[in-house]
């Protein structure tokens, strides 16, 4: 099928990524910062800690109804009939709707038009929605969906990419291959011929559930003229707007989406919240009443997206001195029943699959394959953690074969300034990869510890110790495939009392964006952050600024804020010039004081910010501005994976320190040593917090989180048996921030949300391999996998039903 948004390759060459408001702090050459680089308390901390925050489920409206969803009882089936009579007859039920009731287009796919909101007769997974119900009581709504009778004709299913690709596999869609991506550089055949050592492995990684504290939820309130106001826990309100307008056949202007305070998202509220919101909107449209839709935990785990399961066929070769000569990969992504964001996740996996290393000869094929499993989507790291597990595990294995230290092998091949990414683009700016490796190894005391652990393990049969490292290159912001939505806007308004309202097009979801935006706006304008208030995103207030994903939120809200502040400063400087009879272009404003740009602030303040604001109001000047930013173009050749994949790159190294109980396989993660290139930390405390959170979430995926599926059905959809780390399990996390504010982002920032997680599981895997002397090729490395490896039992997590040749 045809993509809805087909990003066309721009004809003109890439613009200089350093262009724009880039380097200089507030765009006015100021050297000293007053807000940026500080760690003020999060603006939302007090409310959240004291329980005052009103999440979606806390909102109440007169006449409120509660929605519930009925899903398929089979992973793959024709739906022959739906009998809703028993549900309709229940006291308190106000609407029972199926596909035939949809007034607009029954289509909810975000990139591909492959997914109906309500089943069109072909159920492709257990999460296929058959019907929706609205009732006055949420319990009645849930009982009503259970009372709907559905007749099926079950079809054979495909439950792994290998099964779905086999001859005679059940057809889930027209073709079971959704899309393919490639990287082609050099000549791998020639490259492997030059190798002294070649290693091959199939790496397999399992799903990860986002496990945000607040489940998916929204309230939809009908307004005048058929409009809808949607309060939703989400990352991307403009996605929700687009999805709902399609289902209801409305205009975007009629669908207003207000993000309700969001209790965690991690990618799980990128595309998915559109689906419950569209269901609730449909019910609100049918009943004319407000409808609330809140998921129970089990629903949430079974129906919302997961980190993709992938199989990575990996071959890497090197010469005796450790120079990597060639890498050949085949990546199989288990899409699930519908495309969702799978192709863009695969884009990042595809181009990140080599790691931060110079390799001349590269051959990567990435296949996005439909199955009847639950569907993969965005999750912190977006395809990169999966391939990182492959390349970082292979690096340690390769180091072993070469009898080299794993760190030495990484440093030998690691990117330095002027090197070229797998995408063929020179890496712009400084490349602090080696610095991050050195900092992490120094923090961990690598050489002495590795030797100490080797000696310990030789004499201690019960408890073994291990130290393992992983390094990454991370492409900040959207991949070239997302260029067409890579822009953002912000509003900035100075009020008569000097306070400032800002509205940004990206979302606070727990990561601290509101606080960072306030700090950046204050710095850009030149006033105290205590004067700035950032509105929670509202589609009626700001232009579509793209999704809050890809560690882009701080960058993409920072740029337009700086732009808006520049425009406001022009007005303020003009007014100040009139007041003092000075040229407007000699003014600067920092920390609330106007001073001469030529003479500097040390020569004395000329005017106070409040006086100039007062003068502007007296003269009835416009103190409301819109800032705008669009990223430079990203030309891209899909067939070879060559072009401008990303405009800036961040580097990181993490080292894990573990102990293993060889009687039970239990793993104690004792320490994590993390060195992250962040460009500049707007709020160092929050950046450190992001890294700590990323490490623990990555650790969960690495050693304990395992969603078991039986023919597409989740067997452990609750927190009783889907285990995420507790505070007791968290290691000591030692963080070193590498600041190098010369990069493309506003104030020199890079993203940190995703790079904090990406290396964690891989570092753990290498530490566990060091402790046990066993090369693990499957995640999660649970106590069971550790013990069975030690006990010499070959245990495959995802046994491919059909073997595939390269």
């Amino acid at each position: 099928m045809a993509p809805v948004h087909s990003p066309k390759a721009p004809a003109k060459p890439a613009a200089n990524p350093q262009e724009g408001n880039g380097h200089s702090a507030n765009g006015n050459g100021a050297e000293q910062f007053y807000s940026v680089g500080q760690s003020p308390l999060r603006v939302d901390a007090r409310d959240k800690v004291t329980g005052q925050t009103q999440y979606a489920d806390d909102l109440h409206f007169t006449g409120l109804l509660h929605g519930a969803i009925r899903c398929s009882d089979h992973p793959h089936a024709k739906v022959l009939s739906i009998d809703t009579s028993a549900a309709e007859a229940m006291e308190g039920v106000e609407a029972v709707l199926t596909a035939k009731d949809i007034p607009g287009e029954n289509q909810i796919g975000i990139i591909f038009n492959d997914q109906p909101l309500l089943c069109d007769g072909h159920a492709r997974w257990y999460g296929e929605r058959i019907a929706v119900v609205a009732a006055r009581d949420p319990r009645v709504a849930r009982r009503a969906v259970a009372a709907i009778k559905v007749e099926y004709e079950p079809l054979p299913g495909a439950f792994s990419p290998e099964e779905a690709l086999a001859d005679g596999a059940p057809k889930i869609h027209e073709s079971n291959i959704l899309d393919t991506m490639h990287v082609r550089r050099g000549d791998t055949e020639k490259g492997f011929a030059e190798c002294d050592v070649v290693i091959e492995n199939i790496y397999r990684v399992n799903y990860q559930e986002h496990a945000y504290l607040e489940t998916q939820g929204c309230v939809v309130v009908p307004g005048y003229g058929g409009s809808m106001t949607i309060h939703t826990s989400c990352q991307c309100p403009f996605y929700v707007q687009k999805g709902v307008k399609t289902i209801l056949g409305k205009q975007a202007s009629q669908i207003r989406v207000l993000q309700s305070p969001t209790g965690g998202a991690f990618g799980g509220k990128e595309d998915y919240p559109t689906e419950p919101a569209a269901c609730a909107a449909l019910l609100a449209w049918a009943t004319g009443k407000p409808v609330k839709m809140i998921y129970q935990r089990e629903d949430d785990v079974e129906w919302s997206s997961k980190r993709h399961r992938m199989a990575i066929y990996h071959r890497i070769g090197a010469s005796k001195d450790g120079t990597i000569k060639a890498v050949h990969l085949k990546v199989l992504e288990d899409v699930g029943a519908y495309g969702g964001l799978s192709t863009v996740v695969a884009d990042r996996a595809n181009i990140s699959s080599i790691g931060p290393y110079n390799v001349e000869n590269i051959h990567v094929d990435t296949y996005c394959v439909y199955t009847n499993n639950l569907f993969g989507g965005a999750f912190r790291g977006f395809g990169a953690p999966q391939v990182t597990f492959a390349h970082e595990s292979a690096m340690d294995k390769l180091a072993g074969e070469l009898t080299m230290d794993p760190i030495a092998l990484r440093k030998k091949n690691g990117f330095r300034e002027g090197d070229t990414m797998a995408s063929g683009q020179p890496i712009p700016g400084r490349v602090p990869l080696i610095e991050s490796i050195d900092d992490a190894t120094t923090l961990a005391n690598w050489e002495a510890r590795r030797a100490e652990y080797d000696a310990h393990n030789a004499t201690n049969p019960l408890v073994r110790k291990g130290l393992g490292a992983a390094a990454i290159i991370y492409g900040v912001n959207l991949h070239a495939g997302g260029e067409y939505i890579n822009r953002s806007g912000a509003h900035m308004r100075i009020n008569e009392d000097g306070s400032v309202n800002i509205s940004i097009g990206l979302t606070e979801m727990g990561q601290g964006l509101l606080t960072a935006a306030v700090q950046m706006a204050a710095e850009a304008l030149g006033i105290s952050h205590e004067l700035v208030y950032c509105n929670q995103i509202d589609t009626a207030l700001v232009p579509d600024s793209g999704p809050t994903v890809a560690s882009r939120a701080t960058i993409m809200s920072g740029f337009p804020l700086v732009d808006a502040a520049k425009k406001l400063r022009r007005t303020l400087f003009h007014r100040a010039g009139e007041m003092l009879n000075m040229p407007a272009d000699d003014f600067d404003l920092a920390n609330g004081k106007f001073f001469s740009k030529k003479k500097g602030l040390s020569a004395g303040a000329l005017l106070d910010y409040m006086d100039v604001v007062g003068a502007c109001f007296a003269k009835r000047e416009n103190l409301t501005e819109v800032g705008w930013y669009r990223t430079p173009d990203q030309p891209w050749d899909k067939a070879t994976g060559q072009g401008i994949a990303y405009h800036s790159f961040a580097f990181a190294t993490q080292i894990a320190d573990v102990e293993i109980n060889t009687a039970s396989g239990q793993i104690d993660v004792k320490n994590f040593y993390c060195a992250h290139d962040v460009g500049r930390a707007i709020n160092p405390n929050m950046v450190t917090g992001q890294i700590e959170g990323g490490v623990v979430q990555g650790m969960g995926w690495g050693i304990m989180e395992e969603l078991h599926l039986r023919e597409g059905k989740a067997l452990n959809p609750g927190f009783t048996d889907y285990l995420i780390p507790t505070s007791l399990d968290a290691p000591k996390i030692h963080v070193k921030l590498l600041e190098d504010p010369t990069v493309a982002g506003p104030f020199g920032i890079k993203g940190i949300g995703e790079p904090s997680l990406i290396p964690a599981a891989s570092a753990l895997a290498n530490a566990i391999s060091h402790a046990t002397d066993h090369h693990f090729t499957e995640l999660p490395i649970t106590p069971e996998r550790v013990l069975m490896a030690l006990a010499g039992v070959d245990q495959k997590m995802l046994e491919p039903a059909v073997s595939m040749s390269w």
Partner: protein
Amino acid sequence: MTSHSVETYVANPVEDFIRAESIEQALEVRAKFGSECYPLVGGTDLLVLMRAGRWSPRVILDLSRIPGFADIRQTDSELVFGAGATAADCLANEFIRTNFPAMYKSCAWLGGPQIQNAGSLGGNMATASPAGDTVPCVIALEGTVVLKSKRGERTVSAEEFAIRPRKTVMEEDELIAEIRVPLANLASDPRGFQPDAMKVPKLHTVVPRPPFGSGGAPDSWMTNDFLKAGPRLAQVISIVSMAGFVEMSGPRTVKRLRLAFGCAGPKTMMGKSASAVVEGKELTEELIEEAVRAVQQDITPLSDVRGTAEYKRMLCSNYARLFLQDVGGFKLTGTRKASETLA
């Protein structure tokens, strides 16, 4: 083919919630409502089942406020736990800490602080889940369960109390009043008390005890311990647990061994074959391995989302080995190959 039953995750309404003021009142309610009445103390298991729609009692009988129901006391011959005693109550009891480390550890590793404050020993026993962590401790030390009803009182051995998951010998009108453990099995370990071993250990392993002092081992001594495997350190249902109790007649000579395994079968499973291997003999590394293999004869674990049967089998044997190595003062070792253990 039509639809399956759909789990609603909506608790069905309860007709009545009765908070008993006395054991007599509780027994009246129990006699009146029988199986339609579900007694609870903390509700840490029942409320989860009710929410899932898998259990729909007509009446909930709250036992948590009965005076004395949570007391832990000693008679001349027994340590007596009121059925309402919580894990937190056990953790606050000095005698349990020093003389019943198995029970202390099972309580310290159970759930998290909220669960420890609410869940009771009586509830753990009555739920009859093979994963109930305190149950193997009671069974290993030959504990008993005291059942009361309006008809009177009876005592059954804890080992025979559970029949299969969620099914016990308790009649519909009965309540668990007490759990008792003989003081004769609770003599303190002469090797000394190990406060470090009492903390939630990150690796859930045995902290080896010091060897006997200069006087050597007494002629007769005993000890008990508890081990549990889970992928994380709190709020985790055991993959396998083991409570071990041993009575010795010399430094390494075993008089009596009782190994009780959780999650290794439909109820707590007793490692009787291992006991037969070592009883009356002096522990050697070879004998321990024989016992470790014998454990396999008495367990029937199933594969589920928490682990495969093979993994659970390996854990049972490895835990038996650790316990016996510690008792015999041998160097602690990890797993052996599955081919050596499961054969």
